[in-house]
């Protein structure tokens, strides 16, 4: 065991560094990621260590970054892209969804596109518009992409390395509000594969499911619930596409009640898909409808309203109370 106490952003930095040491074809691309080290400093120090040909301060053009990364992947490289903020990914939408996602299929397997696109996402950082969205649903809907999101530094350290090793394109959503809190990282073993969901707190009464920054909110809600005599089982989805349903269904079959929480708007979202599948596959175990606790179906509001918009532990507990009332 090699345990380090690290913030999530630093864990990704170390994971990227390890991946670059392991494979000379791993290169980083993005805006301000080199000399500056990224606006969140996630790539800090890597340009100095690996050089400007492996840590590229690219021109400011998201489609250009993803499109040229595709060409580099055709050449045998494994590009890891940083999109500076969530809402800035859309200029690259064609290159991600019509090109990157479908090119292996279009080539009938003759070429692989192991490109990782890192996207900082989510609220609680008080930023201006386009900086706090949870826009994962666009990518979950696209065949050919894998989508993951770590909730803690240990997972972040390992999942970024596993995403880079994947032979498929991976959209890697990093919860910005979790960049700074520290937690233990075991740098000797991952313990979970990239596409595993996992129980992060066992319980018996209600299954509560989330990903990214929402996992901390769920753990907080579980603490409060415990003081009120309710036992919540908290599941970290980790892999949004594909979803590892086994631990989720096992939990719901045990508790009979399920609440899904996310920062993203609820309409046609990860929570929608989870709720539908849980209902199909665990119908006879359910004692109550599966409830979703989500951001509203509005644009992400100005920062002074984000605390109202974003689901907090009280909104989660309100839903827990409702599923327990059946």
């Amino acid at each position, binding site marked *: 065991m090699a345990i380090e106490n690290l913030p999530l952003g630093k864990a990704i930095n170390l994971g990227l560094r390890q991946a670059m040491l392991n494979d000379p074809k791993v*290169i980083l691309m993005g805006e301000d990621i080199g000399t500056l080290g990224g606006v969140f400093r996630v790539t800090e120090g890597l340009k100095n260590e690996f050089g400007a*040909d492996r840590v590229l301060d*690219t*021109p400011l*053009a998201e*489609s*250009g970054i*993803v*499109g*040229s*990364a*595709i*060409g*580099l*992947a*055709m*050449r*045998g*490289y494994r590009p890891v892209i940083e999109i500076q903020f969530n809402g800035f990914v859309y*200029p690259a939408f*064609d*290159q991600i969804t*019509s*090109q990157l996602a*479908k090119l*292996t*299929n*279009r*080539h*009938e*397997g*003759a*070429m*692989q596109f192991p490109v990782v696109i890192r996207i900082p996402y989510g609220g609680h950082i008080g930023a201006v518009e386009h900086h706090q969205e949870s826009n994962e649903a666009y990518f979950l809907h696209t*065949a*050919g992409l*894998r989508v993951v999101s770590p909730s803690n530094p240990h997972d972040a350290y390992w999942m970024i390395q596993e995403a880079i090793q*994947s*032979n*498929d394109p991976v959209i890697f959503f990093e919860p910005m509000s979790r960049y700074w809190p520290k937690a233990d990282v075991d740098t000797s073993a991952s313990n979970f594969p990239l596409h595993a969901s996992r129980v992060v707190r066992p319980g018996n009464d209600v299954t509560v499911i989330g990903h990214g920054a929402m996992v901390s909110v769920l753990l907080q809600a579980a603490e409060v619930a415990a003081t009120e005599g309710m036992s919540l089982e908290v599941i970290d989805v980790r892999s949004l596409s*594909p979803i590892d349903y086994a631990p989720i269904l096992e939990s719901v079959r045990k508790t009979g009640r399920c609440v899904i929480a996310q920062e993203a708007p609820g309409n046609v979202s990860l929570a929608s898909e989870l709720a539908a599948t849980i209902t199909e596959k665990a119908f006879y175990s359910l004692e109550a409808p599966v409830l979703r606790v989500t951001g509203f179906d509005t644009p992400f509001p100005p920062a002074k309203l984000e605390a109202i918009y974003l689901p907090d532990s009280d909104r989660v507990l309100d839903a827990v109370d409702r599923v327990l009332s059946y």
Partner: protein
Amino acid sequence: MADETLDPMVQFLTPEGHYAPSASAEEFLPYFQRLTEADHRKFYKDMVVIRRFDTEATNLQRQGQLALWVPSHGQEGAQVGSAHATKKQDHIFPAYREHAIGMIRGIDVLEIIRVLRGLTHGGWDPTLPEHGNFHIYTLVIGSQALHATGYGMGIKFDGATNTGNPDTDQAVIVYFGDGATSQGDVSEALVFAASYQTPQVFFVQNNHWAISVPVSTQARVPLYKRGEGFGIPGVQVDGNDVFASYAVTAKQLDDARSGKGPSLIEAHTYRIGAHTSSDDPTKYRTDAELESWIARDPITRMEAFLRNSGAPQSFFDEVHQEAADFASDIRRRTVDLKNPEPASMFNHVYTDPHPLMEEQSAWLANYEASFDEQGGGH
């Protein structure tokens, strides 16, 4: 087109087929001069064969054998000349009308037919040595410009160009049309190519129409100047002069592989046919315009040159027989093509195992089998 725009173009053959290099052709003359009579005849033959193929594919579409066809009729000079200018180590990123280039680089053009018959989205494997690094078609206009640029960045990072050996130094050439020059991805590709000084040629086939919209809507300045603001020099060439297309592309690729960075070629040509078999060009362009371009046809021009140079009638007869045989072979093999297996749609969506693909392909197999169990197909 007004004649003054033709003046600065690189041209070796007049529309009548007379050898009369333009002033701008001078720096490209050595590339023309290294061509042999056999090369001249090969260029002609390739143009005739691919036009005959194009006609056959158009007929196959009309007879319901293809869902769609994308004619290349009229653009053979730009394509055949530039394709022969590439070296075997070069990578070619086409749009979706570059049938002649694919043929010259070594793909079986039946693979293009397979795409347009609805059997595959890709067609050929560009990683196979016999396919000449001819990448698969891209249907989203201009997207491939960035793939080519990224590939060129990779060539540079690999140190696989500008080593001083023109027989191994690599370059990329990307093809797109006048319409694509309006796409953001093409501009972004020019930015990235300039920043990273990729060993790259941007080859614009200006066929004057983006479906129904004239090039004047895409650009208020000549397209060969489009690169200048990005720091990428441009040259315009008579794209219906196969020699000019060859010589300019060969020189620009040599410059690219010797560290001079990216450049842009605008080849003036014309889409004699429709945009696709679904298009009706009579709704947006005049007969007079069409006739003026037919008078500048790349094949008749080359035929006149070859006849003036002493090529016998037997040569032309042989070429036309070979083209007819080529087309018959394509027709025969097209109607024999088999539909893909239903389960194939789950293949290669992902490279690594994926539970949804496994689950859904198993479900489909069971569902299909359930009809057999009920006695008789569906």
